[in-house]
């Protein structure tokens, strides 16, 4: 009945935020790893640092603009990722059914989810907290290292490294699962829309409780 119907899952503001996030975070992750392992000579490392800073400035502008312009989306996102129930525990117990699907070619019952599944919620929490810490510490380490006490700068350096590695490790998993859920991938990268039936299967609680017909 709903096979032709589409739901607007990712509005334009969210998509633009996500485009800029891709353009800034991918170079940040790559240059961050290069800066951590230092495989190149001095000149190449300097260039790497310059790219890292430039991408960091872009990420900051993107995050600050979205925080100010789309604050209601930030609040909604925080509400969603921090709304935790027994369903999330059950989801993690079977890891969303993905290992069974990929390794055993078996479909196991998975608890019903909202807009984000439990894995996406965990990733969202890490991105929200880790991203904020990375932006804040990055600016102090780059722009104000001499104005800030040495111990605080050392602590910020450690936090920047730990959260940078954490988010970089998450990145390939996010990329793989993002592309694997191809309708959602197209929605985020192209037009924002997802088929109603697909959404009802992936995010039944979201469709049931948060989605409304456009004409009503």
């Amino acid at each position: 009945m709903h096979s032709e119907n589409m739901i607007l899952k990712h509005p334009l503001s969210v998509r633009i935020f996500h485009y800029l996030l891709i353009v800034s975070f991918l170079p940040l992750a790559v240059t961050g790893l290069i800066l951590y392992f230092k495989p190149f000579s001095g000149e190449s490392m300097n260039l790497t640092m310059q790219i890292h800073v430039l991408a960091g400035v872009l990420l900051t502008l993107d995050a600050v603009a979205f925080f100010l312009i789309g604050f209601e989306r930030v609040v909604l996102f925080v509400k969603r990722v921090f709304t935790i129930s027994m369903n999330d525990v059950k989801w993690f117990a079977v890891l969303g059914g993905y290992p069974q699907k990929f390794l055993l070619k078996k479909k196991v019952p998975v608890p019903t989810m909202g807009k984000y599944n439990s894995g996406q919620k965990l990733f969202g929490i890490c991105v929200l907290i880790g991203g904020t810490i990375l932006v804040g510490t990055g600016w102090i380490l780059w722009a104000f290292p001499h104005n800030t006490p040495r111990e605080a700068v050392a602590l910020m350096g450690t936090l920047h490294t730990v959260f940078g590695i954490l988010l970089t490790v998450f990145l390939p998993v996010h990329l793989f699962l993002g592309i694997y859920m191809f309708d959602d991938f197209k929605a985020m990268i192209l037009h924002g829309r997802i088929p109603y039936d697909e959404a009802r299967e992936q995010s039944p609680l979201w469709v049931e409780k948060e989605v409304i017909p456009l004409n009503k």
Partner: protein
Amino acid sequence: MENKRYDYTENPFNVTRRQFITIGGIVVALMVLPTVWIKELVSNRNRYILARTKGLYRDDEKAKIRVSHANQAVAGYYRDFGGKPLGELSEALLHTKYINRTQGLA
């Protein structure tokens, strides 16, 4: 234009006014608190620097000799060895050459 191509959307009232104020307040507070903490750290550091500067000025005020030309040892050097300040002999004895040692540090 975009809304012609979809039939459903998210309910804009997914967040109640009370939830919006609570969650928004917590988010803003968590953003502001580290800023206050860092500002406090920098101010404390500046307080140490100001205290140190004040101490140096106090020591300076207490010192008997506060300028080099009133220093008997410096005056004795020029009288017995250097001739006059900025003189040829004085430059030969006191002037140092710049040597770039940064290569050795790298």
